[in-house]
């Protein structure tokens, strides 16, 4: 007789904000999973009726770790709406901001969020377990501290140009508000060089960036691991060997469809920002991959469903431009009391061409493998091959994320060297009514802002964050969201410690919006003696 069981997992540790997961299992295998975003996110609502530039201030505060990505979108959306002209320096400094935010996230995510699970007792009988614990155990692992410390460096570069990180507002319609000097550029090169010497080449790769970037196929990757002791014993070498030994390549497949808006608009190809002109101008290419074919990432193909989301003031399958501001008027329920046939999440269910689509580094590296990419775009066949040979999994997704670090490192240095200190960084635009769309690749995936400006104020503002795509609930047709789908079929060895669920969720680096920050003193009495 089969054994049916339900698990309520709340919160899924180390996932930003409040993500709760309900899994239904039969004989130890997940048959159905539901993700619940437990926090109302209503940033759009406060933007309605405000000055068009309010998005530049408000949206970077939507998140403590993706503020730069929101700023990139907010300024781009206004560029389109106002028809600005962007000087090449502005596009370079925005790309540098976006790339430094993304590259800082890589070691931080790997050590602080993902790899500590490899030190879980589930893997204790595996030969590589002792080494994994020694290096990756939370706080005390020998690489844990090096990686987390290194992760603080790239955003120092962001702060050089942006004034601060996070929550900067240096990107504005028409360019960037900064006037860097040669000293800033030199300092930025030097900070990145520390990142390479302290972690990227020495701890992570065990070889030069150039050697690593020669890898073009899965066979190349396996050969690279075994090429010498330094690479084999690097953190990446250990991660690959341990992942295969621990079976991380065997679960967490997902929906098999991928969306990237792409990012890093080329300095010479996007001086006249338009929605139509954006895709060809991206350096990290955009696209939608349906498992067989590549399609254009046309924002018109986005719809959001709310059948299973706590919103009542809109219909299913509306385009962001047509949606009302979120009402936040319905009552939510906690996981244990939730009826999953009804509404069960504060996340909407975004769809592309009516498909649930995964966003994030895996989507990006799949787009980088598109044979149709042009000469200024990334051309990297590796993940085309890995998807053919192994398909998606927790391992594939994690490898995709860390694979981005060496390439981004090179790009940041290249862009820094292309800044022309004698040229303009900003061209003052003329404000006007209109519609705009701005997008980027946040560390966690495709992020976009839609804006409508009427009578000089914001009439409508919509944000779809990468995690909304990934963590969203079922749509009106009952199709699962990407993380829900990725959990189905997962074997859970110990229901008291469902580390497999955490590994799947964290392979997406799902991040719900961090909003409130107040210290919560649950016992006011203890605080009373410190009253001023």
């Amino acid at each position: 007789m089969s054994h049916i069981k339900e698990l309520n997992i709340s919160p899924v540790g180390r996932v930003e904000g409040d993500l709760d997961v309900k899994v239904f299992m039969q004989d130890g295998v997940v048959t159905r999973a539901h993700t619940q975003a437990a926090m109302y996110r209503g940033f759009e609502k406060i933007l309605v009726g405000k000055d068009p530039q309010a998005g530049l201030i408000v949206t970077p505060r939507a998140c403590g770790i993706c503020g730069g990505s929101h700023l990139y979108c907010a300024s781009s959306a206004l560029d389109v709406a106002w028809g600005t002209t962007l000087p090449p320096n502005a596009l370079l400094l925005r790309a540098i901001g976006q790339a430094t935010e993304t590259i800082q996230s890589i070691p931080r995510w790997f050590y602080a969020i993902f790899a500590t699970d490899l030190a879980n007792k589930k893997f204790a009988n595996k030969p590589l377990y002792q080494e994994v614990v020694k290096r990756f155990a939370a706080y005390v692992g020998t690489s844990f501290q090096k990686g987390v410390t290194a992760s603080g460096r790239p955003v120092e570069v962001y702060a050089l140009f942006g004034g601060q990180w996070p929550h900067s507002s240096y990107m504005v319609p028409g360019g960037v508000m900064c006037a860097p000097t040669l000293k800033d550029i030199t300092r930025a090169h030097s900070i990145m060089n520390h990142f390479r010497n302290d972690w990227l080449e020495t701890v992570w790769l065990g070889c030069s960036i150039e050697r690593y970037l020669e890898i073009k196929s899965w066979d190349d990757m396996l050969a690279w691991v075994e090429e010498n002791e330094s690479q084999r014993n690097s953190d990446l070498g250990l991660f690959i060997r341990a992942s295969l030994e621990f079976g991380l390549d065997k679960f967490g497949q997902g929906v098999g469809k991928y969306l990237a808006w792409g990012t890093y608009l080329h300095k010479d190809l996007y001086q006249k920002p338009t929605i139509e002109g954006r895709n060809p101008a991206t350096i990290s290419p955009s696209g939608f991959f349906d498992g067989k074919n590549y399609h254009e990432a046309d924002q018109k193909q986005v719809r959001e469903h709310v059948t299973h989301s706590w919103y009542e003031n809109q219909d299913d399958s509306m385009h962001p431009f047509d949606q009302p501001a979120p009402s936040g008027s319905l009552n939510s329920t906690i996981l244990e009391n939730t009826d999953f046939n009804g509404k069960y999440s504060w996340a909407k269910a975004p769809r592309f061409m009516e498909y649930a689509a995964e966003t994030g580094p895996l989507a990006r590296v799949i787009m980088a493998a598109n044979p149709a990419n042009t000469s200024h775009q990334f051309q990297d066949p590796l993940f085309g091959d890995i998807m053919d040979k192994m398909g998606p999994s927790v391992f594939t997704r994690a490898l995709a994320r860390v694979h981005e670090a060496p390439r981004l490192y090179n790009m940041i240095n290249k862009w820094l060297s292309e800044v022309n200190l004698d040229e303009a960084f900003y061209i003052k635009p003329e404000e006007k009514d209109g519609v705009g769309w701005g997008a980027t690749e946040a560390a966690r995936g495709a992020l976009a802002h839609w804006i409508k400006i009427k009578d000089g104020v914001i009439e409508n503002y919509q944000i779809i964050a990468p995690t909304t795509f990934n963590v969203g609930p079922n749509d009106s047709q009952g199709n699962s969201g990407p993380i829900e789908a990725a959990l189905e079929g997962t074997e859970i060895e110990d229901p008291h410690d469902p580390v497999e669920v955490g590994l799947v969720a964290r392979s997406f680096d799902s991040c719900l919006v961090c909003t409130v920050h107040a210290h919560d003193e649950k016992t006011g009495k203890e605080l009373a003696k410190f009253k001023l």
Partner: protein
Amino acid sequence: MGKITIMGFGNPVREDDGVGIYVIEKLKEKIEHEDIEILDMGTAAFEVLFKLRGRERIILVDAVINTGEAVGTLYKLPASEINAHIQDDPLVFLHSLKWDQALSYAKKILQEDYPENIDVYLVAIDSTRFNTEMTQEAREGGDKLVDKILEDIDAKVLN
């Protein structure tokens, strides 16, 4: 006096949650000194870790809810009074762990470089609605706190 870092936390688009940032903005207008760093940390408390090394004195400013006191009430306490409850549990290791968690984490990483002289100023608040304006009470609390901090860090260095 030594090198001082003042860090404010909060979200200015969540009504009174932004009082820590309000205080930071006011302090930035009033203080310009090479040994005093004034930082708007927003909601990225993880970054605390990277701001402690080499500093002799740390001042943190945040809002506090559930105190049972009037909005705008001020508190000053040593950071050691705040229990982070996360010390050895990696399962609560969030992207946006709060500063109290970040401090206990920083202790582990920095060891002897961890600055022991850390004070926390808190402003009692109630509302964290989606709103870019603070209440009058929270703003007044913030103004009072600006004065307190200016007294606190030895006004002489500011002249």
